[in-house]
């Protein structure tokens, strides 16, 4: 069925280290994936997205990797900073369905230790 799940509910890293947050999805028809960051008391904030015709996409300090063979998505954060502490959600959608139905995963809480 349609579901997006995260392997780890919490992740603790040292400031300056790289962070890797994982996500598994089960809908093989999903072709658009997004990572959101949610800080306490705020709404989800767009980080980076990737379409299924790509394996990797890089942003500023972030990289998203997509492995369609095993239906796995990961978010890599380079040189993690205290400001990166938040809950990270992956989400999927099936394009080109209009309407905006994103399916969110459970979330991973990233904690950055100074």
């Amino acid at each position, binding site marked *: 069925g349609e579901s997006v799940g995260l392997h780890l509910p919490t992740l603790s890293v040292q400031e300056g280290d790289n962070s890797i947050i994982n996500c598994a999805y089960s809908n093989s028809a999903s072709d658009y994936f*997004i990572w959101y960051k949610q800080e306490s008391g705020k*709404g*989800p904030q*767009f980080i980076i997205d990737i379409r299924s015709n790509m394996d990797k996409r890089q942003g500023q300090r972030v990289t998203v990797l997509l492995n369609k063979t095993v239906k796995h998505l990961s978010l890599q954060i380079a040189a993690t900073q205290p400001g990166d502490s938040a809950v990270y*959600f992956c989400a999927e959608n099936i394009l080109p369905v*209009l309407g*905006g139905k*994103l399916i969110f995963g459970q979330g991973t809480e990233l904690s950055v230790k100074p």
Partner: protein
Amino acid sequence: EPEVTQTPSHQVTQMGQEVILRCVPISNHLYFYWYRQILGQKVEFLVSFYNNEISEKSEIFDDQFSVERPDGSNFTLKIRSTKLEDSAMYFCASSEIGGSEKLFFGSGTQLSVL
């Protein structure tokens, strides 16, 4: 930077009462959404709205829910007769194009039904 604004930030209501949650999407966006997040759970899709009509809705969005764009700037979610299980953080979002691409979320309205 343009942002989605939501009011109120907190809403407390008695079971059975009607509530209206308000949102001002980003001005040049055409697609509007409501999502909700029950404490400790995933962000869940409720409804999407485009061209003055609902594009897609979830099973959660039953007859007790309605959305409206009463003017050129506001987008509202009405819950006609609130239930205890409606207690959640409600997020409004908007995007320039459909298909959930790059949704921008507001900070949410925390609804507490007593």
